[in-house]
């Protein structure tokens, strides 16, 4: 009997080619998309997000082309519970959350693996650009994609070896050009679609408007400097993120940046460019691909945000926290974002930035 696998289809070119490659490998592929959110409530649909209705249409047409079944799975409850609610909570507490990591962790690679069990499939495949190394012992390791421009390993740090064993990234080692070429040759109807971007559920409106519909009210407060001196009035902490320079509306001799956000006092702390530099970070809820850190104290290259080039650092394991000390100070280390640990191109694990250390 053929091995059965679920292909998570976003309607984009990467996941479409992923499904095609699995089919060529001999798998019985079942195409699935996740219905995560009632987009009709907030928008008429927008290109460039993950799972809009137009994208579901594209995914269905790709599955038709491949001759495989296609199902849309309702995961709205899980999405609200595991992604949107935490997103709102994080913002309200002055952090800048990264819902895409949560969506991978809880939806794509938890809920969908459960669906795979229910449908008698051995695992789940996606169109992510990242590489899974499978060892003879059954242990799996996670690596950055060779195409550094496309590498998405940052968003996948929370997967452990056990889950990786059931996951496939069929386009993970390819370049975007190769993927597009395969899609074109196979005449998949999505070969020239543009890249997805931005947070899928905050659509035609600003974050502040989205959050206010979720009951988080904007409240005016003060811009202050490090010493607590009031510099002006802000429009509500939801409108700001660490490292931000534009849109502050404060006149000063030197350009001012958001250095930190104090949700409790409803204050946005401003400083000069130097003040946005951090020597390190405290990281909460750490996880490791191998299940445990390589040592109590170890060296790693860390990325503090998706497009961050990475900085060598020393990592010390503390009780349920990591203390990370960068070799050179880093700009805009933002609470709420993921900090991901690499050894060369291998992902060791990561966690969530609780605060930057000055």
């Amino acid at each position, binding site marked *: 009997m053929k091995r059965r696998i679920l292909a998570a289809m976003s309607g984009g070119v990467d996941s479409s080619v992923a499904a095609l490659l699995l089919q060529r490998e001999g798998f019985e592929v079942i195409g699935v998309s996740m*219905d995560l959110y*009632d987009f*009709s409530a907030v928008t008429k649909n927008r290109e460039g997000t993950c799972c809009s209705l137009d994208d579901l249409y594209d995914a269905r047409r790709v599955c038709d082309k491949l001759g495989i*079944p296609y199902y*849309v799975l*309702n995961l*709205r409850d899980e999405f609200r519970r595991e992604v949107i609610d935490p997103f709102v909570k994080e913002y309200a507490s002055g952090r800048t959350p990264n819902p895409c990591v949560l969506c991978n962790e809880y939806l794509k690679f938890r809920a969908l693996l459960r669906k795979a069990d*229910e*449908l008698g499939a051995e695992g789940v495949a996606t169109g992510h650009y990242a590489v899974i190394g499978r060892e003879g012992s059954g242990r799996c390791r996670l690596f950055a994609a060779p195409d550094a421009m496309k590498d998405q390993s940052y968003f996948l740090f929370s997967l452990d070896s056990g889950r990786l064993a059931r996951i496939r990234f069929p386009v993970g080692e390819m370049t975007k050009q190769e993927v597009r070429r395969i899609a074109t040759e196979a005449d998949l109807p999505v070969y020239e679609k543009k890249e997805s971007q931005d947070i899928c559920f905050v659509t035609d409106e600003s974050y502040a408007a989205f959050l206010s519909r979720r009951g988080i009210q904007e409240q005016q407060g003060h811009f202050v400097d490090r010493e607590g001196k009031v510099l002006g009035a802000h429009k509500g902490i939801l409108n700001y993120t660490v490292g931000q320079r534009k849109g502050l509306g404060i006149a000063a001799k030197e350009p001012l940046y958001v250095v930190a956000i104090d949700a409790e006092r409803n204050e946005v702390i401003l400083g000069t460019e130097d003040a946005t530099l951090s020597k390190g970070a405290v990281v909460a809820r750490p996880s490791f691909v191998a299940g445990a850190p390589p040592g109590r104290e170890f060296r790693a290259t860390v990325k503090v945000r998706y497009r961050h080039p990475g900085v060598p650092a020393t990592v010390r394991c503390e009780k349920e926290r990591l203390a990370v000390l960068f070799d050179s100070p880093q700009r805009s280390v933002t609470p709420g974002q993921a900090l991901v640990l690499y050894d060369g191109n291998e992902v060791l694990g990561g966690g969530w930035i609780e605060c930057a250390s000055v």
Partner: protein
Amino acid sequence: MRKVYLDHNATTPVHPEVKQAVAPYLSEMFGNPSSIHWAGRDVRKAVEDARQEIASFFVCQPLEIVLTSSGTESDNLALKGVAFRKGNAGKHIVTSAVEHPAVMNTCRFLEAQGFRVTYVPVNRYGIVEPESVRKAIEKDTILVSIMYANNETGCIMPIEEIGCIAREAEILMHTDAVQATGKIPIDWKSFPVDLLTFSGHKINGLKGAGGLIVRKGIELEAVLHGGHQERGRRGGTENVVGIVGMGKAFSLLRTGMEEEVRETRRLRDRFEKALFDRIPELVLNGHPAERLPNTVNISFRFVEGEALLLNLDMMGIACSSGSACTSGSLEASPILMAMGADPTDAQGALRFSLGMGNTDEDIDYSVDAVEAVVGKLRAMSPIYPREAKVR
């Protein structure tokens, strides 16, 4: 793989005699029924013959039938047609909480146009109680619209009693009889209803044809403005193939309905009994007796309807669960929620609807499959209680 179709409330296979009857209208009989010349004349005759067949089935007059594209269009015509024609006399409409989206969303639209709508609740069996309708009627009520039988549970509403209440109050009465048609005999002469929706593809006709019976003397505002077709009540060149097919389907029902219903009921009862005998923790959604002879809606506790449905699909069995969102995914049925079902039970509900072509072998195969899939999914379920497993 064996294929078993247990979703006849969604649509039905085309009857071979329907296919045969429409064949000429896919080739030489191509004319426009409105044309005066030979090409139009013969086709016009076919449309009117079909209308006559439908009229004979319902025992109504042919000119009381407005032919439309679907049940949905007929519902729109009934509700908007009455509202926009009688909107000066009153602004209030009474309907139920378990109507098909064709009625429900048309009512929502009318609310946005300044009408008021009362959505009468149902009892725990999913049935609208006549007294609730009576209480909902207001001074300026212009229309009562209650479905004859529910598409999800198959529950049959006491439509004659409700019709009598509307009559007493001198209010127009509409019923969406899309699911009831062909399963419950209807005699329009003595039926206390003014407008009745039916559809062709639920009775082994073709998709794209439906109709509305409008009692003689009642005027409706058109929804589709255009040519003079259907005496100005519905513009647009007739879907001749669909109409001819629907006419044939009704003529087949006129002679074969009783036998068809008896056989479907036997299979449905056997299916239902086998499931309840062999699988623990099932809940029947809907009334045990006041129900269409072909429908059974069951909650499989501790299992998600979606997982069940997809597994059965992969085993060749077609049935349905909940209601489809715009995306095509499934959500807990608003109908079952309106009946006061436990939300988790509603998530685990499946509807099986039988019809032409189903056999005893289909039933045996399906019962085995459902038992196996439910067993497998419950074994994975963290919430399935141990004592129930032992039982």
